[in-house]
């Protein structure tokens, strides 16, 4: 997920060419208060005219408590986005209020499909503690995300590369997402020059259950893909598991051994997920 400042037309124009899975056009933290309205108009107009080559489109709006949040939603919701990212969500009621507002705007605009998803950002201690309720608040929520910098600020600590201060938050957010079978999206890695650090943090995020990660520069996309995309060996193994599973199922066996290790339903399900990620049908 590539963050693009909503007041940078050149970057928005090129947004679709970098191979990101999703674009996050930002009206919030990367836009200064005096440029909020200009950015909103720019993003709205560019979404309507620029070819993003099928990249998923998400806009991060300002919080409803700010003077800009309502106007952001009014401008963005009718555009048929894939998702709206809502910052600094701390309670279930807060995200439900946003969704309610979105649905009123949709109604006014004649949008009935309710296809646009909502991604609450967890960026405060209170949000972390309430994440389970937030994640399950609505069917429109298909991902929760963590905002690392804001969270550490709220906690009064400094964001360190080892991520130790937000480790609890990361795991808690992931678990809430898993509980509702939705995506958990990790925060950005701020040091553009540290490719190894980015790789390490992404590998860690994947290991504990995140399903994606935001980037602040297109240069980081490749590393994220390399980590999250299943490797050739992983795919080969998944193909073998699924094939063996089918053979065994014909024989009426739900559990079988492969290379001396037990394979049961959860392992088969994981193999199938890997193949679907890799877009492979067997």
């Amino acid at each position, binding site marked *: 997920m590539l963050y693009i400042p909503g007041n940078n037309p050149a970057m928005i*124009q*090129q947004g679709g*060419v*970098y*191979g990101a899975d999703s674009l996050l056009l930002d009206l919030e933290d990367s836009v200064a208060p005096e440029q909020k309205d200009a950015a909103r108009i720019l993003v709205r107009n560019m979404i309507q005219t620029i*070819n993003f*080559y099928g990249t998923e489109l998400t806009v991060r709006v300002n919080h409803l408590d700010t003077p800009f949040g309502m106007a952001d939603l009014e401008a963005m919701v009718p555009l048929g986005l894939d998702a709206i990212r809502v910052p600094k969500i701390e309670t279930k009621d807060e995200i439900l209020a946003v969704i309610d507002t979105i649905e009123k705007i949709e109604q006014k605009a004649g949008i009935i499909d309710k296809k646009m998803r909502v991604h609450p950002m967890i960026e405060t201690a209170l949000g972390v503690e309430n994440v389970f309720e937030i994640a399950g608040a609505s069917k429109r929520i298909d991902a929760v995300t963590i905002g690392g910098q804001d969270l550490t600020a709220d906690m009064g600590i400094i964001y360190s590369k080892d991520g130790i201060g937000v480790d609890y938050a990361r795991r808690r957010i992931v678990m809430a997402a898993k509980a509702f079978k939705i995506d958990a999206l990790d925060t950005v890695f701020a040091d553009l020059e540290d490719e190894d650090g980015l790789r390490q943090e992404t590998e860690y995020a994947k290991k504990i259950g995140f399903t994606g990660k935001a980037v602040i*520069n*297109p*240069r980081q996309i*490749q590393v994220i893909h390399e980590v999250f995309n299943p490797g050739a060996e992983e795919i080969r193994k998944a193909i073998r598991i699924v094939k063996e599973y089918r053979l065994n199922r014909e024989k009426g066996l739900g559990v079988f051994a492969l290379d001396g290790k037990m394979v049961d339903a959860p392992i088969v399900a994981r193999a199938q997920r890997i193949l679907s990620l890799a877009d492979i049908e067997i």
Partner: protein
Amino acid sequence: MKNALGIEIPQFIEGYGPTEPFMGAWTKLEAGWMEEGAYPPPVKAKTAHLDKLCNSLEEAIDKVGFLSGMTISFHHHLRAGDQILVKTLEILHKMGIRDITLASSSLTTAHEPILPYLKDGTISRIWTSGIRGTVGEAISNGVLDIPVVIHSHGGRVRAIKTGKIKIDLAIIAASAADTEGNATGTHGPSAFGSLGYAVPDSDYARNVIVVTDNIVEYPCIPISIRQSFVDYVVKVDSIGDPAKIATGTTRITRSPMDLRIAQLAAEVIEHSGFLAPEFSFQVGAGGASLAVAKFVRNIMKQKGIVGSFMLGGVTSYVIDMLNEGLFKTVFDVQSFDAKVASSIFNNKRHIAISSGLYANPFNCGCITNKLDVVVLGALELDVDFNVNVITGSDGMIRGASGGHCDTASGAKLTVVVCPSFRGRIPIIKKKVLNVVTPGESVDVVVTERGICVNPAHKGLDERLRKAGLNVKDINDLEKEIDQITGTPEPIRYQDKTVGVIQYRDGTVIDLIKQVK
């Protein structure tokens, strides 16, 4: 008469002479035996224990007797750091010499101070592979009466060998030399690496002066320029600023766009079928080209592929790949930083070569003929895959032919990398302003908005599509870009020809007209 690209070429160009139109990349060379004949190198003699060392460049020039109307040559291995070309022309100007033909292997921004000499008649003709900065602009605006000749690196050797360029005096800057004239660029405080472009000059010039800021004990090793070709040696305080040799072209780009294009180009190479053990590879320096090496390097490591050789302008990145064992040999006609220079000196698999061995079409096989894959840049590229690397979108000369058409013709897979537009200016166009490399030599162009395969390269299109790459018809890409940028107003030209672009075989592929 029209050449093979349909460009009108007059039979005779004032100041240039009779022309031969471009007929196709290999049409002329297929004959095997060239009718033009070789221009004889000079036959000279020196008596024993003669002192070749001069106290100043002035003294050396005085001794060789340079006159108005003569041709002087330089190499551009010091790129934007070179001080010798300007210094020499200042001396010639002071001597009252006029009507000079300047035959520098390329002209960089370091050479901008010669502009007044183009205006006052000191310099009247130029043969070179590239011109940048204010000199290029002035030429495009018609400062010279006689059109400049733009040749490729290989084409320059061909022109020297056949006497199209008759060098009266070659000035060869070297970072180390002995008092007999054995010279190298591989060590010394101003080390710049290979002296490849200066070799034909030393072989064919009537007089050769080696200029160095570093006289070393006899013999100077390695002997890149041989004493038997050198008339005089001059010690100066400095030949240039080695820090400016690189001028940013040797570092991997940080531009996300260039990196994205480079990554796509590496994927094209990976799935082209040419990335296999023993493959040979060249990348241009700078922009997206060099970054392609970074991604290809990763793929080679992952797949355990060891290539045969890398060729060309050599960056420290190429040397890293040699040292990692990813390639067995590096052929180096031009080096880009001090690390490369010391590698030539210390690594026997890093071989400095002459520009003749590199790319001269008039011999029994230059190394570009053995290339598998080359990655090149472009200022513009059109729907017929013709490439412009010499004039900008405003029609002004601001680039270099370099080894573009040499390598493109020789490589089995020529990959051009460029953004589809820069700022508001389309790079993929219906028609380029000037052609340096004909489309027939280009197999695939990689942009951020699509990969276009030359239909002449059968099967490549399908291989890349199968690999899931975003392959588009180049006409569709051109239309898509046109929708984004709009079509720029056509440039208004005057009738005057200010530049003749030679193809590597000496035929005329295009003319550069004066901009209104």
